[in-house]
């Protein structure tokens, strides 16, 4: 795990000066429940990630998940597992796979894929061909989730 971590860090360093196009949704490499590489090569911004997390038109994560780090927001949903301390339970690469397309990790889950822009039945026109979040928003949410430690 450590070796993989280092090699990712190196790969990240190598990639960052080039950081150009984000990985397209259909090109994301889900391997064994993880997505190793950043979708953008740009470090996630946890502050923006927090906004994306609670925004009802973006992540809307509170619709289904309790998060003790957001006590100022009322009515946390209970459909999915609590995200309080989620960084103690999941690694960054695992979180990336779960947020980008949880169906690649949990078969049959109700959780929407946040970085998938094709394969939907009857999408509303405004959302047709689009993913719920952008690649950078996904990275930002992951960066925020990584701050949730107990």
């Amino acid at each position, binding site marked *: 795990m450590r070796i993989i971590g280092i090699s990712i860090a190196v790969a990240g360093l190598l990639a960052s000066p080039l950081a150009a196009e984000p990985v397209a949704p259909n090109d994301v490499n889900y391997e*064994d429940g993880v997505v190793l590489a950043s979708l953008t090569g740009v470090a996630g911004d946890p502050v923006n990630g927090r906004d994306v997390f609670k925004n009802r038109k973006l992540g809307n994560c509170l*619709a289904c998940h309790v998060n003790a780090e957001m006590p100022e927001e009322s009515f*946390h949903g*209970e459909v999915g*597992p609590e995200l309080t301390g989620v960084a103690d339970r999941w690694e960054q690469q695992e979180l990336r796979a779960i947020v980008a397309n949880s169906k690649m990790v949990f078969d049959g889950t*109700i959780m929407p894929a946040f970085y998938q822009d094709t394969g939907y*039945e009857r999408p*509303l026109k405004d959302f047709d061909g689009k993913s719920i979040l952008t690649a950078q928003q996904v990275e930002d949410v992951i960066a925020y989730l990584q701050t949730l430690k107990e």
Partner: protein
Amino acid sequence: MKAIKLLVSTACFMGMAASTHAEEPATLSIEGQAFTIQASAPAHTENLDEVTSGWIYRTKETRALQLDDFDNPGFVFVDKAIDLWNEVDGSEDKSCASCHENVEDFAGLRTTLPRAEDGELVTMEDLVNECRTEQMGAEPWKYSGGKMTGMTALIGLQSRGMLMNVAIDGEAAAFWEKGKELYYTRVGQLDMSCSNCHEDNYDTMIRADHLSQGQTNGFPTYRLKNAKLNSTHARFKGCMKNIRAQPYKVGGDEFKSLELYIASRGQGLSVETPSVRN
């Protein structure tokens, strides 16, 4: 490592699903009449043990509004429908009352709709509009408009307290199968089916909303959210838009089939229209 995490996550999920928010015991009685709000699931609803009225999942305050017809805002619209019942319209110089002396004669009708007739699935809205165009020589009402929804609530009210009992065999079987397929098909950018929320996760909070089984026995229902009566098809449309799916046509074949299938899932629950929901 991974296996342990998956187990923990699953246990957590199951713990959530098992939590019960509905306050027990809940009994619904209106004007001295007892309602069946919980019943054993019908055999054809294989994934549920019991079926429950949406009334159970509402707050104490919202529930209270349905306990007395004077407090129930839905009756404003029922009263308007009584006026419409007696209003002459169309080339034949007739009102509903010209042919149907007492609306009470429709007791029981709500429990059996939609029903298959001559190869078509017929809803109460269809019956009302057929009367208007064929008998009255009047323009059909908008399928889910205010006049129609008031009238279907008035006619449905005559069956209030009776148990839902739609036919799903014979000619209805093909429509029922189609409705069932729609119920379990994931749609929209959020990629969800009716069952994801209303079968797998009922009695769970989705943000501030307490998920119900999505039963239709209370429809048309008065919603505090929009302060009017809402038809089943309007509600289906709202659900589909919430999951960012292109809704099927209100009054179209898909929603009619879905209406039949969902009505059959509520077999054994009392008709409650006009119910009050949030």
